[in-house]
């Protein structure tokens, strides 16, 4: 089973007429017949692209298709507006793939979302997949396999690495979420752990963190105090020097805070099985859990 999305999810693509948006809308449709029901590009409403009906507004798309999820590929300059449009249309879930959204735009978006029903994943993320049911994002579908492990990560390719380690050992995944590498984003590690804990089909979790901030520590406290399911983790960035941004805007150690060693130590204190090497993420989970 899964969290957030399943085979009943109906998805529209904001920015579907761009090359990236269309390519991945097709990729998602090809994965287990994910219900990609259309797209939004202002000014192109009423037309069609590769079988996807296009609407001028998200509101219109929801009315016509019954979509409850939106995925966003619009450029950074328009991303915040696109997210808010989807929130206004009362989507259950909005996934913003776009990389490079200004952080103060996201501060406004977070304020706008207060009290609204919509959950946001991203920005700057690979998306979410419930293997065998539904793929909403840019990840390669074939590396996944349906099963009991939830995966949550800030990074894209490092998530694929963890998933591949599981699939190669014949262990499947319930849902894999890439929450994105930006400092202000929609869904945190903690949010994901709470949902995995509540999902009866998820039996164990791999959490992949990075240097910077204290989101992993907050998640670890939840594991210690409230979580019944085993959690394994890896923290990337042990070799990163202070004050240098490692690609992701959020991955920066500042003022001696947020380094990998202190994060790993705290996670271990909270009962998380921490992998010292990124090649051992699945092994770290198998040390404390058997499928």
């Amino acid at each position: 089973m899964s969290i957030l999305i399943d085979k009943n999810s109906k998805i529209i693509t904001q920015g579907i007429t761009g090359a990236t948006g269309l390519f991945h809308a097709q990729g998602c449709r090809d994965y287990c017949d994910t219900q990609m029901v259309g797209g939004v590009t202002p000014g192109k409403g009423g037309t069609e692209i590769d079988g996807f009906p296009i609407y001028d507004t998200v509101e219109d798309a929801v009315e016509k298709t019954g979509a409850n999820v939106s995925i966003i590929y619009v450029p950074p300059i328009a991303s915040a507006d696109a997210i808010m449009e989807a929130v206004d249309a009362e989507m259950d879930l909005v996934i913003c793939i776009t990389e490079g959204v200004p952080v103060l735009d996201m501060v406004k978006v977070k304020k706008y979302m207060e009290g609204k029903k919509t959950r946001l994943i991203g920005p700057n993320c690979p998306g979410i997949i419930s293997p065998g049911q539904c793929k909403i994002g840019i990840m390669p579908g074939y590396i996944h396999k349906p099963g009991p492990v939830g995966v949550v990560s800030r990074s894209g390719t490092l998530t694929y690495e963890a998933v591949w380690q599981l699939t190669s050992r014949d262990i499947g995944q319930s849902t894999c979420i890439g929450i994105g590498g930006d400092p202000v984003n929609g869904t945190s590690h903690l949010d994901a752990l709470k949902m995995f804990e509540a999902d009866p089909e998820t039996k164990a979790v791999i959490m992949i963190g990075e240097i910077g901030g204290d989101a992993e520590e907050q998640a670890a406290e939840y594991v210690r105090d409230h979580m019944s399911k085993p959690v394994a983790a890896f923290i990337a960035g042990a070799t990163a020097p202070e004050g240098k941004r490692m690609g992701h805007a959020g991955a920066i150690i500042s003022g001696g805070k947020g380094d990998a060693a202190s994060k790993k130590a705290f996670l271990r204190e909270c009962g998380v099985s921490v992998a010292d090497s990124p090649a051992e993420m699945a092994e770290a989970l198998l040390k404390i859990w058997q499928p």
Partner: protein
Amino acid sequence: MNIHEYQAKAILRNFGVPVPEGHVVYNSNSARDWAKRLGDGPWAVKAQIHAGGRGKGGGVKIAKTADEVKQYARDMFGMCLVTHQTGPEGKIVKRVLIEKGSNIADEFYLSFLVDRATDRVTLMASAEGGMNIEEVAAKTPEKLFFESIDPVVGLTAFQCRKVAFKLGFAIAQVKLAVPLLMNLYKAFVETDCSLLEINPLVLTGEGELVCLDAKINFDENALFRHIRIRDLRDYDEEDPMEIAASQYDLSYIALDGNIGCMVNGAGLAMATMDIIQHYGAAPANFLDVGGSATIERVTEAFKIILSDQKVEGILVNIFGGIMKCDVIATGIVEAAKQVGVKIPLVVRLEGTNVALGKQILADSGLDIVSADGMADAAQKIVKAVKG
């Protein structure tokens, strides 16, 4: 993106924030001329580099005469200034700021930053001005005051007054602090800062508040809407290889080790550095080649990695994802041929068509070592370099 102190002060002045009168100079003669033009001394002579802690390294001097201004400026030009933020190699001083001196009665600390715990901009203040604020935070956190700012309402007058009274200001200074703080916040939001730090804010003997130093970092993601700020970028302050990489949309950061890394994705790139260290060696760089590892990008990435003389071996770690491994392998082979890689090269590919990809590497006639998985790849390159 970072800018110089004099540039930060010019921006703040435009937002109505009180900063000392001053002018940047590029040689010692104009240092003296500008000192005279600014009026009577004393003057502050401040080396302009992108790093804090300049005072301790001899980069900040107080001059009593215009000739002293010239002398100090002459000492600073061309000087290699080493501070706790420059690294041991230091930075060459090419610009010097001449400022009218301030009569300092007391010093305070102010900063605005995006707080990822609250998803809001936070104002941080302390009466411990001029100090290393990270030390204050660690040793005496009760001396730091915070105000979280509603992005819709903005910084309010009452929040400014709360902070000002906590800093111990008399009512006359509270009245000065309110517009000062509101204008700082306006500057922060309207120029898309990620950090705006005033350390110190000084109370002068005349009872005025002045921002004696100013540090601004901008959100790189927002530079597209600030053309004038983008022009303030000082390439002399940045690593030439990092600049070269950014022209090809490669994210590169030089490190101290001897194993060059080329990886797709920031998280996997960090993890690749980590696993090299895990097996007892050190990475020479962080390099995210991005989602589409095309021949052109891979070629440029090889060139940048090889321009670092310390590099004795290269580890390529690509998780194919959407791109097929045979396409990536062809790119790596072409790039390696073009660039002429003469040091050990270990390639780990994973994803669609991985067998075909490995075959292309094997048939290339190049000395490329193929690896299965990250651990195998890291062990192979560490062994190859250590011999």
